[in-house]
């Protein structure tokens, strides 16, 4: 049960082949093996949301998923979403609204916010608060983050018109 297992997956669009211990979680695999350190570890028990990534298009806590479970999936991290430009507008809104201070929660927050905006074009403020309520931020008090997500939703709506 402890012998390394071969996995093959797409990470930010690149094919990755690796031999991993069965107990290795996805967050440690991304950070330590692939050096994708934008995915952060805050609690390592699935509560703080800092390690949120997308697997097969769905947001997951990478500290609660084993690397072997990601076999044959497509994983996307903050580095991938940044390089593709998918969330450039959301990142700009965070910057302009100072929706981050220490920045440690920010990659996870962006992942979750983008997930909401893909699901719903113009979420109400309460809905944004609700969707982000599994991601802990100690610095901002959340209001700036909610504002930035709201602004991004509005701007995307305007672009569509």
């Amino acid at each position, binding site marked *: 049960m402890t012998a390394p297992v071969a996995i093959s997956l797409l990470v930010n669009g690149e094919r990755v082949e690796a031999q991993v211990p069965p107990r290795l979680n996805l967050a440690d695999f991304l950070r330590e093996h692939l050096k994708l350190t934008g995915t952060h570890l*805050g609690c390592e028990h699935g509560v703080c949301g800092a390690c949120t990534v997308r697997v097969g298009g769905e947001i997951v806590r990478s500290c609660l998923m084993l690397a072997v479970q990601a076999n044959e999936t497509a994983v996307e991290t903050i580095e991938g979403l940044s390089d593709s430009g998918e969330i450039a507008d959301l990142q700009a809104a965070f910057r302009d609204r100072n929706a981050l201070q220490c920045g*440690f929660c920010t990659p996870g927050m962006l992942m979750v916010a983008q997930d909401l905006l893909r699901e719903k074009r113009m979420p109400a403020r309460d809905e944004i608060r609700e969707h982000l309520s599994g991601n802990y931020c100690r610095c901002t*008090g959340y209001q*700036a983050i909610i504002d930035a997500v709201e602004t991004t939703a509005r701007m995307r709506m305007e672009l569509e018109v």
Partner: protein
Amino acid sequence: MSSIRTNPERLSVLDRPNSYIGKTVPRPNLDRLLQGRGSYVSDLELPRMAHVVFLRSPHAHAKILSIDGAPAKQMSGVITVVTGKELAAVITPWVGVLSHLKGLKSAPQSAIAVDRVCWQGEAVAAIVATSRAAAEDAAEHVAVRYEELVAVTDMRTALEPATPIIHASLGENLAFERMHEAGAVDQAFAESDAVVEADFIFGRHTGVTLEPRSVVADWNAAEARLTIYQGTQAPHMVQNIAALHLGLRESQVRVVCKDVGGSFGIKVHIYADEMATYALAKLLRRPIKFVADRVESFNTDIHARDHRCKGKIGVKRDGTITAFEIDDLTGIGPYSMYPRTSAIEANQVVNLLGGPYTNKNYRARARVVFQNKNVMCQYRAVGHPIACSVTEGLVDLAALEIGMDPVEIRRCNLIADDAYPCASPSGLRFEQLSHHASLSKIVEMMDYQALRAEQARLRKDGIFRGIGIASFIEVTNPSAAFYGVGGARISSQDGVAVRLDAQGSVICQTSITEQGQGSESLTAQIVGSVLGVSMDRVRVVLGDTDMTPYGGGTWASRGAGIGGEAALQATKVLRQNILDVAAAILQASPAELDIVNNAVVGATDGTPRIDLNELARIVYFRPDTLPPGIQPELMATRHFVPREYPFAFTNGVQAAWVEVDTDTGFVKLLRHWVVEDCGTIINPQLVDEQIRGGVVQGLGAALFEKCIYDDRGQLTNANMADYLVPMSGEMPDIDVGHVVSPTRESELGAKGAGEAGTAGAAAAVSNAVNDALAPFGTIITEIPLTPQVILTALGKI
């Protein structure tokens, strides 16, 4: 924003064309953090780096009989197992006392426990391995035999003769006691129309920085130099302490602090496990990494606010407060923290209580006792939330007793805005505060009368909403009076060096640090404004003891006020030096020239004379073309520390609007308002966000956060599922307003803003909950206001 005092003649340096002062501009380099390209210590890897995991005591108090690390040493990936006794050969113990806190005592603390453990979570052995996972595996195979001792857990009985003494050498469990008396307290109470008393209870809580404490220590034996990569607020302090206890000169220690995942006072102390990590690097002659996991964070990051405070207030029928009296008791764990000590919070409670009011009669006692729990020390807004909750709780109780509106009683007693300078009965000196302007402003912002009408209307429908008001003062810009006078080598001055580079851009090195507050931004804004260059031409370097001037760092709301003034003064010198060179090149007089938009221009007509880029080219590459005798200095350094006032006090007021569900005991935060006065505002957005973040930390304390210990000293909720923190779903929108009274101590006029939010939030919420529950005749003076506390008070459970 309203201004209570302006100094047009003194704002000239900041009020230049294209000034960034008072403007919202995005912080430089945020894209790095937004794209996951930050550089936190937990991300750092070095060649030959090993990982340390600490085996921690499961007991709150026990003798260590034996430690057997041999089986663990045989395990795959394990480099070594080190005990406290072995590590003591490399690093000396410390005692967390300061001489200005008279009578404060503590016992020597070691990097790793030697014979005895004094709290659950104290490290007993270090396991060093090639990976953290391997070290954690091996930790389970280190056998420690303990003899359990009686744990002292209840601060209320810690001083009783029947309670065991934790440190025999100290003779008692009392660490520190302070008495203070001013005015004629007994007479004032005797002459009062009403005297009200209450016991205030505060839940022990902690900082929960999202990035846990992290260190990489790298001893390079060939250079005889230790490099410490650490998320710290005070790099020079860490340098001094590490050198002192490892037997090195300070020049042999470099502290590098890149991105920090939250600090809030948690990362301004010296922790035993961090000291052990430095020592292990020296012992093993290689880089060692320590990253606390979340359970370790709860068990070892400093806790705060574990206070029980008896309060008493006297009041006349006309609303005049006649006296305050408090008896504060706090339990700080088994050691006073190093090097800032654990007596500061209680001391602050005595200093700050009643601070906003004109009352002159004040008696206080504060006692600080040892316990077998995790250590307590300074966390954001040290002492303020306790002093504010007790003061404002008592003021509301007095108002209730005499049938006066809470806003009205504050109007009767707040120090008048034109009464400054003045001093408090505890001896604090106030340069210029604005309590009345702030109160008027918040009453208007929240539409107080309309809320009262809404409250009355909803009560008829069985909906219980309440309004809570809390005025407060905040300690900012501390001088040497905070730590230096007590013998701590913690700098209260800060330094900034600015230089023009060869393309006319500016490199600025500052000793303040960045943990997300915006230190880098405010420094660039000041340098850009004073010099006359655009912010994108200013690069700020901070967080490295090899690269920056010497200074205190960022804590106690000091970065903008002290580091900002140093930046201003250094830039003024650089500006003059540039104008002198420009005058020589242009055959003009410096007074005829100015710098605007990255170019030297005519002072009167603004005509471009020479680009800074061109000026720098001449200075650095063609000095031969300059007139004889001209030696340009395109670098300038200045330091600053306030000298006239020990602290620059700020003030403000908060208001909460809440709804209490009397069936479930849940409190819904509907809205929160803050008006505060931090003097000159460098970046309004950054100030507002400091306030909002601070408020939410205070709201966590008000409603959720508590480290729950059992009577054997076991922390029972050391994880993020059981220890509740504020999340976005429960938090309200927070409206922030300002009154501006610049300090005259500096040309910049800025005071601090980092702790105002945390200072008054819990007091406002407690008062609001009591206001909501007024129809039930219930008064609650305990936080966190959990459903259990509220339903118990309502007699429902």
